[in-house]
């Protein structure tokens, strides 16, 4: 891939960020982390980082172009959520709809502790 970029640079051709990395490694790392948690809208269930359909490449291009232009990953994610809703990310923001996902484990843990406490106390008495 880096050879492709080198070739494109020497040939004076613009790099297609849908298929090639951002030359700046720090920015590419930020983009890669974000792309791994963005849903491919055509092949739902895959991330745009994993998918090979054209639409995923088009979304990667948008993400990389924005990050290469200096936007923060959180801003790019917010831009996409503004257009597609939280379904577009695999790391949805906390909202009324997603709150049970975060709260249910805590509630179940509390219920488990309460049950354990009850049975331990009974055993001690016996």
């Amino acid at each position, binding site marked *: 891939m880096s050879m492709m970029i080198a070739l494109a640079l020497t040939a004076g051709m613009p790099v297609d960020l849908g298929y090639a990395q951002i030359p700046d490694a720090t920015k590419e790392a930020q983009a890669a982390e974000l792309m791994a948690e963005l849903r491919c809208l055509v092949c739902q269930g895959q991330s745009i980082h994993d998918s090979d359909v054209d*639409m995923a490449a088009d979304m990667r291009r948008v993400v990389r172009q924005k990050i290469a232009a200096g936007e923060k990953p959180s801003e790019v994610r917010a831009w996409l959520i503004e*257009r597609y809703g939280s379904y577009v990310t695999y790391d949805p923001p906390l909202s009324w709809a997603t709150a049970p996902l975060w709260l249910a484990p805590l509630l179940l843990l509390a219920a488990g502790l309460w049950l354990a406490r009850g049975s331990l106390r009974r055993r001690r008495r016996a």
Partner: protein
Amino acid sequence: MKRWLLWVPLIVFAGLVAVAGSRLIAPPDTVVKSALIGKPLPDFALAPLLPAKPGLDRGDLATGKPRLLNVFASWCVPCIAEAPQLMKLKAAGVQIDAIAIRDTPQAVAAFLARHGDPYARIGSDPQSQVQISIGSSGVPETFVIDGQGRIAAQHIGDIREEDVPKLLKALEDAR
């Protein structure tokens, strides 16, 4: 421990089975709607794809009169299926503009010659940039745009015969 508490796990399990079963019988809708419905179209300007037809920018869609914005491609099979319905809408006096996704002039010219040409303008979006910026996730999709350039409604997938009255009503409501 109270006796009835013993039934709680079974009841919870039955609930889970009911939820999973109902989703198996009626799978959830997987279409991704644009979150921009009710909001203004973002600013964009697309070059023409065909020499004989103008390109498309945001200003062309805010003309005081509701219109349709069709996102299509010559390589898209359902776009062929909806072509006759778009011709019907055009015959009913509806203004239809288009964004052609990842397409070439030759292919679109052949597509329009074969399936009819309902479009006043066609903007070329070779890398889906504008498609993504309006929250569209595939082809074909049709947006109802009100006179101020706001997205009033979105139709996902091909327009079938029964969708034509719905779109005409959405255009009327967007007035």
